[in-house]
């Protein structure tokens, strides 16, 4: 819990991102983090254009996974419909950017999409949490919302389902979604494939650091307390309803951003993003990686989607079988997920190490 200020020159810089609610409060962890970001940043340089194109989609998925891990792992709200906000973000960007076919449109689209998905999450969160909907009912309600959107967008094939020039397109989806861009009129920066990869990576890293700071703040403590024992937290004077509402809304905003990054990468979005299989994926990533570990969820999302992609490339039909079995296996064998399990192993290993120099680091991590 205590952050040792003698840990190095960057200790002051690290302090906001460290605390009992995240693992990896050591210089070694941050070194590893820097290496991981560097490796990810090097991928397009090493493997070229194609790696950037595919990689950006995985990174956008990882961002979606993080949005779920944040509300599920830290606040105990399992949203089975996190893809609803992902899809809303993607569609909203498309509608705005197609109607305003300049760089202004893409910029406005980004802002509008995040705003719309945030508002959608706030509305649903207000409706649920201030209405006393709890636990599993929240889970099922969010799933139903995603499925309502699936049913709705699926039947928008007719020409009357257009907002301005943007046709929703039913099951064929909305095509011609422009690239991401920042600018006004024709002056500005158009974000091409490789740049898009870096924007997505930057968004993911920034979100990760921002959420780390958030979960280690007073608000984060209150979130975890709400997860652990809601009525007791309420008794201590915290407004748990507001805490859940706020966390859910933040999660929706991040999911909306990931939806924009997804849709602008593919230049396309269709109703399958709201479908049952898509809805399950964030839950799979967070369960496998460890829902109380933001980084574990990122790792699981990248790894699982990469394997899934490779299996699909090789024409294998077994991808879903493998992913489903993996999910069952992990929840039965490692209920907390892979990353917290690894952390426990590291802590066990360190605490069996007699050198006193390692002891404070070990103790620090046990307090998670």
């Amino acid at each position, binding site marked *: 819990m205590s952050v040792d200020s003698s840990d190095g020159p960057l200790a002051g810089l690290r302090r906001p991102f460290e605390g009992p609610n995240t693992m990896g409060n050591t210089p070694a962890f941050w070194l590893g983090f820097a290496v991981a970001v560097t490796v990810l940043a090097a991928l397009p340089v090493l493997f070229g254009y194609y790696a950037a194109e595919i990689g950006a989609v995985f990174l956008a998925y990882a961002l979606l996974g993080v949005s779920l891990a944040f509300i599920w792992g830290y606040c105990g709200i399992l949203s089975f419909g996190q893809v609803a906000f992902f899809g809303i973000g993607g569609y909203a960007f498309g509608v705005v950017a197609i109607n305003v076919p300049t760089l202004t449109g893409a910029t406005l689209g980004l802002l509008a999409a995040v705003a719309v998905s945030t508002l959608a999450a706030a509305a649903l969160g207000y409706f649920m949490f201030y209405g006393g909907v709890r636990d599993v*009912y929240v889970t*099922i309600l969010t799933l139903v919302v995603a499925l309502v959107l699936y049913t709705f967008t699926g039947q928008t094939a007719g020409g009357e389902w257009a907002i301005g020039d943007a046709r929703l397109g039913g099951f064929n989806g909305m095509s011609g979604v422009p690239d991401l861009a920042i600018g006004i009129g024709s002056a500005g920066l158009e974000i091409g494939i490789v740049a898009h990869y870096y924007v997505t990576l930057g968004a993911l890293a920034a979100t990760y650091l921002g959420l780390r700071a958030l979960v280690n703040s007073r608000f984060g403590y209150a979130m975890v307390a709400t997860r652990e024992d809601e009525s007791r937290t309420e008794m201590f004077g915290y407004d748990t309803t507001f805490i859940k509402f706020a966390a859910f809304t933040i999660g929706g905003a991040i999911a909306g951003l990931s939806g924009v990054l997804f849709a602008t990468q593919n230049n396309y979005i269709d109703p399958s993003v709201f479908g049952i299989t898509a809805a399950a994926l964030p*839950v799979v990533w967070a369960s496998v990686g460890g829902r109380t570990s933001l980084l574990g969820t990122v790792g699981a999302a990248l790894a699982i989607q990469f394997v899934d992609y490779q299996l699909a490339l090789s024409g294998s039909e*077994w991808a879903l079988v493998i992913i*489903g079995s993996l999910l*069952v296996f992990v929840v*039965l064998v490692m209920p907390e997920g892979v990353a917290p399990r690894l952390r426990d192993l590291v802590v066990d290993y360190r605490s069996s190490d007699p050198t006193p120099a390692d002891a404070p680091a070990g103790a620090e991590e046990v307090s998670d």
Partner: protein
Amino acid sequence: MATPELLNLGFEFVEIFAFIVLATVGLAVIFGMMGIINLAHGEFILVGAYTTSFAVAAGLPLAAAMAVGVLATAAFGLVLERLIIRRLYGRLLDSMVVTWGISLVMIQLTRIAFGNTAPGVGIPFGQLPVVDGPVYYLVLAVVAVGVLGGLYALFMWTDFGVRARATMQDEATARSMGVDTDRMYTATFAIGSGLAGLAGALYAPVMTVTPEYGTSFLVEAFVAVVVGGSSVLLGTILASGFLGTVNAAFTNLAGTFMGQVAMLVAAIVAIRLMPDGITGLLSDLREKWGESE
């Protein structure tokens, strides 16, 4: 002029009501009695439908094929409970995640093993004379009511029912009274699975059986269970009646799609107003009423 329209509306209601009851009841038994949220419910239905289709294709009469479907699904549920589900009692959200994984595996395995469709099964009994629809839908409604009655009898009147309910109420006490609680869980899960299989078998003639067949039941089933609340039978009946009415009314006014959407929106509003479902509201009211007396 008005009479056939009214008959049509009534027929539509009966059709939707039967569908929701049959889709829901297996899920409701497993959720309401055992606290397991079975997201693989649709795939249990799929097992029933596939077994029935293949049994018909192998030359069995339809009724016998359906019986095979029900038994196969019950057996499947029994094995799954022994292998996986029994580790998940008391872990509500984990049960949801694991059964979701099972569902993904089953859909894809079905596709790999049997391709994209099962052999077709014809609709028996022909068309109704007055309203526009097959006689078979009325049979489904009768079966739905029969299933509810049968379940009531099973859990209220038989020795098995008493033991099963005692296990769900208080496992430790039940065990100390000599009830084999492990067996009660397995048996209840198998019954829930068998009921899911029944839904699959009964709708095999009406809907094309594909690997995604189960998902067309899933939404209605989940919505009805949640709207119904924790009391299995009463909750299923009331929720199916309420949702069926909304769906039939809007289908009649604005088409199938609007019926579906109206039903889902009604369900969302209902959960918002009654977080513990209809039966939760009823027991609250009963308490209040009891107090004021």
